[in-house]
């Protein structure tokens, strides 16, 4: 596979390390009343769709950036690649 890095352009997926569902950037609040349940869902019940999937890839053999890749799990077609950090910052206010 080839991941089109936002700054570095197309790179072979072999340079990257895969983590999984992009929702892993939304770590629950440890002080919430139902923190235990929230963390359980956060860590164990991830999206696993047959189709569009937002997922985390780490460019370990590149610029060491964590990326959020939108990829179709049926065709492997990649429709979007973003810096996870940008997304995380953008989603901050919502929390």
């Amino acid at each position, binding site marked *: *596979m*080839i991941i089109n890095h936002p700054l570095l352009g197309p790179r*072979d997926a072999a340079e990257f*390390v895969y983590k999984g569902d992009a929702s892993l950037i939304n770590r629950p609040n*440890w002080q919430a009343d139902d923190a235990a349940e929230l*963390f*359980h869902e956060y860590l164990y019940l991830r999206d696993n769709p047959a189709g569009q999937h937002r997922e985390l890839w780490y460019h370990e053999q590149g610029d060491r950036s964590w990326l959020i890749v939108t990829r179709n799990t049926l065709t*492997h077609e*990649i429709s979007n690649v973003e810096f996870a950090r940008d997304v995380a*910052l953008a989603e901050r206010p919502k929390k």
Partner: protein
Amino acid sequence: MSQINRIEGGLINRSKKLSFTFNGQSLEGYEGDTLASALLANGHRMVGRSFKYHRPRGIFSAGSEEPNALVQLRTGAYQEPNTRATVTELFHGLEATSQNHRGSLKYDFMAVNDLFSSFLSAGFYYKTFMWPKAFWEKFYEPVIRAAAGLGRLSGQDDPDIYDKGFLHCDVLVVGAGAAGLSAALSAGRAGARVILMDEDFCMGGRLNVETLSVNDQSGSEWATQALAELSAMDNVRLMTRTTAYGAYDHGIVGALERVTDHLISSENKPRQILWRVYTKRTILCAGATERPIAFGNNDRPGVMLAGAVRAYVNRWGALPGKRVAVFTNNDDGWRTATDLAAKGVEITAVIDSRDGQPPVDVPKGAAIVMGGRIVDTKGRHGIRSITLSNGQQIPVDCLAVSGGWSPNVQLTCHQRGRPTWRDDIAAFVPGGELPQGMSVAGAASGNLSLSSVLLNGHDIGNSVVSDLGFTPSKVKASSSEEETTGISAFWHVRESKARAWLDLQNDVTVKDVKLSHQEGFRSVEHLKRYTTLGMATDQGKTANIPALAVMAECTGKSLPETGTTIFRPPYTPVAIGALAGRARGKDFRPSRLSPSHSWAKEQGAIFVEAGMWYRAQWFPRSGETHWRQSVDREVTQTRASVGVCDVTTLGKIDVQGRDAAQFLNKVYANAFAKLPVGKVRYGIMLREDGIMMDDGTSARFAENHFVMTTTTANAVSVFRHMEFCRQCLWPEMDVHLISSTEQYAQFAVAGPNARKLLQKVVDSDHDISNEAFPFMGCGEITVCGGVPTRLFRISFSGELAYEIAVPTRYGDSLVRTLIAAGEEFDVTPYGTEALGVMRIEKGHAAGNELNGQTTARDLGMGRMVSKKKDSIGNTLSEREGLNLENGLSLVGFRPVNRSEELKAGFHFISKGNTANMANDEGWMSSVAFSPNLGHSIGLGFIKRGSERLGEIVIATDPLRGGEMDVEIVSAHFIDPEGERLRA
């Protein structure tokens, strides 16, 4: 007798004679021959035996689709099983032998299988060999296994080398026939970066074997001219002997280049190169493959594909037979008759399954049978005659069969593409979703006349480059005369009583397909799996479609309704050595060497692999014959005076930023925010699921600067994890990570005399006295006259100890200096074994304890997990399952009988209980012989261990035999109060 069947003409170099041997017999051929063409030229028809029935088999095709003519190429360690003679380029000194027979090729004892063929019908083995029970493994299976397989591996290491590489281009053209050359010309002329590859050693494809002319030149002349133009373009790369075998995601194509397979020796160059091609567009010009028609005994040597017969005559001047008949269902079959007749070959008959008039002028003297059928053939080791449905027998020594042409759609299906059926050419053509960036041109896309192929290749080449933003050249497409390509589907002769073969290599007949249908194996995949159709080395290139047609007939469905088989890589089989490339032996993975490596080597150190690292395991001294002697000495000497150990391999991460302290406070389970500058703290890191991930120390060198150490094993994953935390979880923090593992050579200096030794190298303006530099202190100092140094007062051994880090370039020099300076203290270098003994004596957990299954609580560090703050793993570490009342805890063990030796992997059972899984209470994780205590000691996990100190339990070891009584003790065997550390 030499080359009795060689005639004039062809693209061979008659001035270059090549001698070779087949089954020990020496023969001659010419440069430009394949093994198959040379064998035919020498009058060899029978070249092998079939898989199941051991039927005599000859050369069937002239390409990579060959099911029959498989030979064992070369000898000794170089021997190469199942090699297709039809694509093996002849070279001087080639040695080939036939496969899969006991006794000679001609008289094969295993041929008895053929007599029992009715017992060996499809799937027979699923229904029998079950009685008596034990007999399957003891008798039946060994017999079946011995009979299975075709060629033989030598069992010796592959002596050749292989390489890999990466190619990049705008347009990859696969196949250099009429379509490929036209497409490449279009793309090349427009200025695109083009790669043109072909599996053959001579580009041109069918242009080299047909008598059709292009632009009033012969096809091969035109090809030569096109290649000359292409090779003159520096934006075009031509690759012969290169097969594009797989289409992968996002336009990546895998290709295999056979660099030296046509040479007697590789001469230290790679035998083959595996190329990963990164291309914007791929134009598949893979041509088409002819298929046979099934009829009685259609597998005899001499029965060949019609296109192959004329290929041998036209390209190689090799005559497959002297009295040739043709059996066809299409116009193209007739071309074989006319081409051969033109060369003066006797055409005894042309049988066309279609009614009506012959499509071309009839060769003189040939019997023409329109609407004809061949029901049977005769000839034990090669065809001698054919029998028609009307009973007429015609003597032949070669039968050219054409059931029409199937476009080579394989690569279009390597992802989601499914071919679609075209009735007018009775074949599947590329359909559905093609792999990203792929287009198809020429015969591969269903254009079966040369004129249409040339035009199609030219046009697709142009449209692809204009897609990419290039301006296509104005040059017109080349043209050729028109030819007729009529066909009406005809798959097998129903009237045939005898067995009619579909899959020649795996011996799958029409009867087998019918039986498969009768027993309910009707989906294509069931058919393949039940009959083994298409599972042989030719992957059913010539067999699948006719077999599908027979199944369609049984189900009463149309062929496309019946389905198509799914094509997967590789297009043709690829040597495993090529896919591995250079990665074998010592080069399987890179080696990381610590700064003291060459010094340690000089000391005769024994090394051990630690991940990619090589670490000194112990340093034998003269007179020491057993590793234990060396290790015991290293431990004793270190505890008595001082020892030096290279700990460079530990992961080191510089953590900087305004929020560095807060950041560490979140990634570590214990508190770090308030660590004073100049201090080091031991930290435990949890995974988010609350299990221990890693442990290590972090030293605060400045308000905004920490230096963290990780275990050697987890250095990479911890860095990755911390980058995740930094970028994804807490992006608002100002914190920066960089690995300094490679930057510093780090040595542990341990033992009562550690300080004295260091004081000899530390520059005098730095005070490292206990007062100025207490336990868990750290600082930046200089040694040996100004060399910048990081010094840490930390101890893994339990002794007064430091870790000293200098820029790596000085590492070699530093270890030599420390050993020299330590002479007066009888300093010893120590390796990972002594390190392990001392940490076990001290009760420190290491890899065997931090195994990814244990919690801080299990390790007796539950209280370190601060509940006053958020940290990774904090919340989920509170789950009931990780806090069981009778949970495991890490404790020490010693044998009740001190002379007994503990072993890691023991399981613990309470006294009086029987040893079984229900009574299993834990296991021994690490053991060592403690030279200080004089007996074997161990660390292990046992339920409620910390409450059971002093209890005797059974340590059981059924695996290695035996069990022993062991006492549960504190894990701190040495200096439990830690006085030595602070000395």
